[in-house]
């Protein structure tokens, strides 16, 4: 209990005390978490404002200005971060890649959370054999590397953008399912759900109005923890040439394209690598911190 709580005279464990504890946790946010949050904010801003921020179009080629080094490092070229083998501006491509990678990761995270929550709730509601079968699927998914699963789907169904979004969305659904099932079973057996049922509320009402609202916090933390993986799956697939297809750009695709020119044009690889690295790192750091300060029990 912090001194602020004692001064206010709030008993620990009450809603007010919890809120105060969280607020003080935010105030004493470590520097690295602060940096990570700022970087994420910057990335989201870049994603939203991409068309206005980018000095050139992401597919705009200037054949006479190929493989120009970055102006940022003192070279006399019109490109801040240099140009690639087709004379496209690296900065503009990175900004658009951030936009697409973030859109896919956000859509994917939402899909994964919805699918996982639905499966977890179904398992907790139906119990018995259905629960066993659903949780068995969860175990199977958890025991295989997701990349293999993703590649299998791409192999059989071919490559297209919406399929990619769905695949990225399925990454980590089993973790939501496990988490939600645990929380719902707990609510059903010991907590408020039993009380609501006793006063005559039906299942639909209990799940939608009460359980879903109560587990939102835990779900949000799990979403932050899953976000780096969704980004990594998308960039990984794009890097392998099986995700986002040209002329669209994604961070993975940019890094993959830069590989062939790394000996003569290091700047093509530099910006997307740094952005990909900082983004996954920031989300990891912020997610870990959120998990530590929130009182939700994950797994």
């Amino acid at each position, binding site marked *: 209990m912090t001194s602020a709580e004692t001064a206010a005279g709030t008993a620990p464990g009450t809603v007010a005390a919890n809120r105060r504890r969280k607020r003080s946790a935010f105030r004493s946010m470590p520097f690295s978490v602060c940096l990570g949050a700022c970087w994420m904010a910057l990335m989201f801003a870049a994603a939203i404002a991409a068309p206005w921020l980018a000095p050139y179009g992401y597919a705009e080629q200037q054949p006479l200005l190929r493989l120009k080094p970055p102006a940022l490092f003192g070279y006399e070229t019109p490109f801040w971060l240099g140009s690639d083998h087709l004379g496209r501006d690296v900065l503009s491509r990175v900004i658009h890649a951030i936009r697409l990678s973030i859109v896919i990761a956000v859509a994917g995270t939402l899909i994964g959370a919805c699918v996982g929550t639905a499966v977890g709730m179904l398992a907790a509601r139906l119990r018995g054999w259905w629960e066993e079968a659903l949780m068995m699927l969860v175990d199977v998914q958890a025991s295989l590397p997701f*990349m293999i699963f993703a590649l299998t789907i791409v192999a059989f169904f071919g490559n297209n953008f919406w399929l990619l979004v769905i695949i990225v969305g399925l990454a980590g659904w089993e973790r939501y399912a496990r988490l939600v099932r645990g929380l719902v079973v707990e609510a059903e057996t010991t907590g408020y759900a039993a009380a609501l049922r006793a006063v005559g509320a039906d299942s639909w009402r209990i799940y939608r109005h009460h359980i879903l609202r109560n587990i939102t916090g835990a779900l949000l933390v799990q979403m932050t923890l899953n976000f780096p993986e969704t980004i990594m799956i998308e960039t990984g697939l794009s*890097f392998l040439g099986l995700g986002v297809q040209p002329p669209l750009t994604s961070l993975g695709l940019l890094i993959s394209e830069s590989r062939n020119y790394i000996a003569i044009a290091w700047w093509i690889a530099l910006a997307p690598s740094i952005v990909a690295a900082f983004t996954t*790192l920031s*989300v*990891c750091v912020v997610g870990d911190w959120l998990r530590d300060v929130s009182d939700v029990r994950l797994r």
Partner: protein
Amino acid sequence: MDTLPLQHDGRPGPHLGRRLAALARFCLLKLARTLATLWIVVTFTFVILRLTGDPALSLLPDNAPPDIAAAFRSRWGLDRPVWTQYALYFRNMLDGNLGYSLANGRDAVAVVLERVPATLRLTVSAFALTLAVGLPVGVFAALRHGRMADRALMMLATVKYSLPNFVIGIGLIYAFAIWLRLLPSSGSATAAHLILPVVTLGLSGAAVIARFTRSAALETLGQPYVRAAMAAGETRTQAIVRHVLPNAAVPILTVIGFTIGGLVGGSIIVEQVFAWPGIGRLLVDAVAVRDLAVAQVIVILLAVAMVTANLAIDLAYGLVNPRFWNNDDDIR
């Protein structure tokens, strides 16, 4: 809790038969789970293979002679009800009969198997590196808890853990192959070719292991029996080897299970970065040209490998944790 099955002087403890039966039941249960997982994976490939259309068109090259296509159809029972096809799919799988590669018309299983040694060389070395770096770093950080070295190492581990493998791989290629000109950037001709891919793949796992080893070791270091052992005259190293590591082994083993999954998934990307001729690269090539027969064999092979590794970890978990087979009630 009951006494240990073997007492300290090595004589069998009481109820040895009952405990062995419990251990056998534990192993059988794990084995059944493993087989069920494999069954689900194979069913999954069957379902999506059927969803994409006629397997004879998907699994045979376009220019396959008509008599081969006819033989394939009758062997897979493509003119019969779907349940018969399902049964035949399993039988063909057990016979290793999984179609022909689109690329060169060869037997898909043979095409995949000849790539296995390269992948094993990469993943086994990376796994060894993971353990050789992760465990000592974790213990060292735990011993220096809260000091500069601990913080620096854990920060490095977080950075390493959260960076995509291909970013690290390309960074290493730039540093060691292009800038310093010390190591080859791609291929697999010599032992030197192994270094960069193994480091890329191994260090990600090592970062995870180091983080978990540190927290597991910190938990056991604070236990009274460690202090008691040191008070009784054991050196720090002795206390760590005899008391801390065995007790921290259970959580660490669980994490090693996760790391193997990371290794298998990561090897697909690392093989691509370093042009390593293993099954990961074969899988990517097969997916790109939709060589379904080869992709299917690789998926099933990797699933078998993963599931076997998980089973081994589970069994090791049962063996190192005396609680697991000491008391029947604890066994799940």
